[in-house]
Every structure is written in C-alpha cells, then in structure tokens.
C-alpha cells in the first residue's frame, strides 16, 4: 500500500466539500418531530433546509399541554404539590420546592433547619438524576449507546434512594408546605453517602469515555455558540448560560433554603459551545455529590416539618389521644389551610435554570393562580439561534445539549 493510498484509507485528511450541485439549491421545509427520538419528547421543529444546511428552525410546542396550571386552581394548596411535580418530570423535587417556597412566603411560615437540609439533599440527588438522564439520552443521540446504559444504571440508584425515603420513585410528593413529609428512614443516610462516593467514581468513568472521544469532540466542539449577552437577552439561565462563562447560579447568587451552609463551586465554561455545556453539567454532578455529602454529615437535629398545626398535619400517634390534633387533621385534610391574599414569585435553581413559581392567593384554601416559569420553555427560544447556519447533525447535538423537557415546556 502506498503512502497516498494509506492516507485515503484512514480518512484522516478530509477533502473540502464539493460545490453543491444545482438541484440541492432548492429549499426543503420539513417537519422534524413531533415523534422523533432525538427531540426528547413531543417537540416539533419546522426546519428549512438547503441541502444539509439549516436555514431556519421554528419550534412548535403544546403537544403535551395538559392544563396543569388550570387544574391547580381547583385544588387546595397541599393537593397542588403532586400536580406541579408532573410539569418538569425530571425535576419533581424542584417543582414542589418552588411551589412550597412560594406558599411559605405567602404564609410567612418558618421551615425548620432539618427540613431545609433534607430538601437540599433530595434536590441535589434530583439534580444528579436529571443530569444522568440528560447525559444518557444526549450521548445516545450522538451515537454513544453504552453511556446510556451506564447512566441509567446510576439513575436507578438515585430512584432507589427516593423510594427508600418517600415510597415513590418518581413524583414523590416529598416536599410539603412547611417542611418535608417524613424524616429519612434508618440507614438511608449511609446509603446516600455511599452513593455519592460511587457516583464521583462513575463520573470519572463517563468522562474517560467521552472527554477525548474523537467522534464526540467533532460533534460538539464549536457547535451552537451563542454570545453570552444574547443568551441573557433571550432569558437563558442554568448550565447553558454558565457554559458561556457567566457564573449565574441562584444557589450562590441568592442562596435560598440552606445553600449558604455548603461549600461548593459553580462550574463555568469558556467558549459556550456544546462541549462546554456537556462539561458544565458533568462537573455539576460532582458538586451535587459534595453538597449531598456535606448536608448529610451536618444534618441538624429537630423537627422535619413545621410544628404549626394550622399548616402541617399533626403526627399520627397524637390523633388517638388529642381531640385538638384530630380537629386539625380533619380541617387540613378536608378544607386545607387558607392563605392570606397576596402574590409571590419565588425562583430556585433547577437543573435547567431558573425555575420560578408564581402564586396568587385570594384568601381561600385554593390558589387563584399557579404559574411555573419553566426554564425549558424560555431556553427553547435560543434553539433557533444555535442551529441556524449549521448542519442538520449539529441541530441534533444542540437540541440534546439544550436539554428541553417537554413536560415542563407544555405544562
């Protein structure tokens, strides 16, 4: 084999693309989705193509709109929690937490320190879970199928922890107004601690598989760069913004719950391409492990839910002996608690960015309005600017690294 033939065989040098023949100058408008595995849900994109080049892309959404916000207006406050959890179905602890924090703000209710820590532990585990699902499905889109199995193996361990502490694997209804539904069971803390150590090791293994993978690098490096200022104008938050170099993270910028107590770093990118988005999220898994560990080791003693009987259910054993507890229980279960009139918007840092909950109370036991500012919904607006001018294959990468959850977009 001559030297020239060998170069061709290994395919290292790539010839510059030939001038496109005249017939591919025709524009082609196609529907991408709604039922396409790479759209991560029922997202429909109306894409205009010239050959392989994307000239325009418009998202069409609403295919899984279920009117959750409307249904919330028909439920008493504590019954809203399972509904909002089903919006962004990979970040259920965050949804419930944003809603509960908004209601607590309106009630002016203190949450005990132990409950705050338990919330943080579960939220960070949820963040790991969400990022694992994202990493698995995104790598799958780029052709790396084994990562998918590895990520879902670890994800199952997080779900096991959720099941152990609350009884459900998804949509756990763990966060309650005033605290959490139950203390963690015996042996849970040890399991969670062991998981964080294992997870850190696994993250290293994922990185070893992807970080210097030639195919992965070629698909993600310098793809989908949008300037930081433009991202801010489009309202993009979360890992997408941090990958562009802006260290905006509500856990650090405006610490809520007990994030003040923990020592963690905010990973940021430099270029803002898809590779940076991947690196930022993977680094966040590590930081979440550190937060969970610190929270478990420093878990304060005390009640796990507020002792205000007007808001939180009395302990079960009291019902047999105390008439007052029985009345409180009855009132809470039948009517629920009333919230004084007012409105509050409370943002927290979800896995995809700023997750805000806006609640209007009219003085009754049901909210007059519940609105979720879902980060996927707002971030989706940036998709067009990421993909226009690139190739169809880059659009898949961009969509994967955007991490849209259609349940959250459509609500």
């Amino acid at each position, binding site marked *: 084999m001559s030297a020239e033939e060998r170069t061709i065989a290994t395919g290292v040098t790539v010839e510059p693309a030939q001038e496109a023949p005249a017939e591919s100058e025709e524009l082609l408008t196609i529907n991408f989705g709604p039922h396409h595995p790479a759209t991560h849900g029922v997202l429909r994109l109306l894409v205009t193509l010239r050959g392989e080049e994307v000239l325009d892309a418009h998202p069409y959404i609403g295919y899984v709109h279920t009117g959750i916000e*409307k249904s919330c207006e028909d439920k008493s406050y504590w019954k809203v929690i399972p509904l909002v959890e089903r919006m962004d179905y990979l970040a259920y602890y965050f949804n419930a937490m944003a809603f509960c924090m908004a209601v607590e703000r309106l009630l002016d209710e203190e949450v005990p320190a132990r409950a705050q820590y338990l919330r943080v532990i579960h939220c960070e585990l949820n963040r790991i879970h969400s990022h694992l699902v994202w990493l698995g499905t995104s790598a799958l889109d780029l052709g790396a199928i084994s990562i998918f199995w590895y990520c879902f193996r670890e994800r199952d361990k997080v779900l096991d922890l959720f099941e152990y502490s609350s009884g459900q694997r998804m949509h756990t209804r763990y966060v309650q107004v005033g605290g959490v539904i139950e203390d963690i069971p015996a042996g849970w803390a040890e399991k969670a601690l062991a998981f964080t150590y294992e997870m850190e090791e696994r993250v290293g293994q994922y990185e070893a598989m992807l970080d210097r993978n030639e195919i992965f690098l070629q698909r993600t490096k310098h793809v989908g760069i949008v300037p930081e200022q433009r991202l801010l104008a489009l309202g993009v938050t979360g890992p997408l913004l941090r990958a562009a170099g802006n260290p905006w993270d509500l856990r650090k910028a405006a610490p809520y719950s007990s994030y003040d107590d923990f020592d963690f770093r905010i990973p940021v990118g430099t270029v803002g391409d898809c590779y940076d988005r991947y690196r930022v999220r993977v680094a966040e898994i590590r930081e979440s492990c550190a937060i969970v560990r610190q929270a478990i080791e420093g878990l304060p003693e005390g009640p796990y839910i507020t002792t205000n009987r007007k808001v939180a259910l009395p302990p079960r054993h009291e019902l047999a002996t105390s008439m007052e507890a029985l009345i409180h229980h009855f009132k809470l279960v039948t009517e629920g608690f009333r919230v004084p009139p007012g409105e509050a*918007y409370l943002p927290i840092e979800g896995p995809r960015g700023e997750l805000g909950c*806006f609640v209007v109370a009219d003085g009754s036991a049901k909210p007059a309005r519940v609105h979720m*500012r879902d980060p996927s919904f*707002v971030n989706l607006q940036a998709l067009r600017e990421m993909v226009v001018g690139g190739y169809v294959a880059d659009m898949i990468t961009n969509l994967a690294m955007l991490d849209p959850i259609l349940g959250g977009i459509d609500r």
Partner: protein
Amino acid sequence: MPDATGLELIAHDLGEQVPGSVTGTEHYRGIATLIVDPGRVVAALRWLRDTPNQAYAFLASLHGSDYLPESPRFGVHYELLNMDRVERLHVKALLEEPGDGELPELDSCVELFPTADFQERELYDMFGIRFRGHPDLRRILMPEEYEGWPQRRDFPVGGEPVLFTHNEHRTPRWYE
C-alpha cells in the same frame, strides 16, 4: 429585592422621568411591586432597564393573572432582575376588561427583552391579552383553531370530551 424605601425612590424617579407611569407600589413579604400604567409599561420597562443606577436588564419571567371579580381584571407581571446587585423587582400592569368580546391590549416588550416572545404568546393564548407590536402573536400551547381563553377564571375546568373506545359511537365519523 429593594427595601420599602428603595422601592419608593424608584417609583419617585420613574414617575418623574416617565410622567404618569407609576400608579402604586406595594411591598409585601419582602417582594417589591411596582404597579405601572398599562399605556406606559414599555416606557417604564425601558427606563428601568437602561438607567445606569437601576439596570434591571434581565427579564426573569413574564406571566399573567386574572383577578375576577375585581376590576381592573387582568394583571400582567414582569419579574425584572438585576444580576449584579441580585435585586428583583416585580412590575405589574393592571388591565381593564374592554367588554363587548374585545380583547384587552398592551404594548409588547419583545423589542426590549427578546425573551418575552414565547411568554407573551403564552399570555395571549391563555388569557386573551393582545400584545401590540408582537412580531408573531399566535397561540403557542393550545391548538391554533382553539376558541376561548383557558386560564381566565370564568373558563370552566374540564368540559373537553375525551374519545375512548366505549364512547366513540357517540361522535360518528370522529376519524375524519
């Protein structure tokens, strides 16, 4: 969040620069609310965004609410954020219901904050608030041919018939 005094200062300055724009302030549970005149909302937002010592340059969220039976009936809420000072300002415009089946109208702020694009469409879709000057005001979550404004308080919950095998004979030729 600006404190109660800071909020009054903002309201005073804004009222001087954009006369008649501020109709009220509210400081409740640590959340600073500026109630602005719906006709001057874009001018007020522009002032809040571009004045150097305000610089609320990030629109975190835009959402609506229906205060039925109160009047004015609709609220359009802008959650502004200054990322350097980590201060949030809640700007609210209250809209009357025009009556006669007309839709309430408000100026669009997409020019100022491109992020408002989808969110104004959602408001139009859910509350029937028409945004003047929006580049592409269509329904976003509901089907395009849908009638009614589902998030309004007088819109009933439920009422959409769901087609199952056991009741498909009641809607003949449903597959067409």
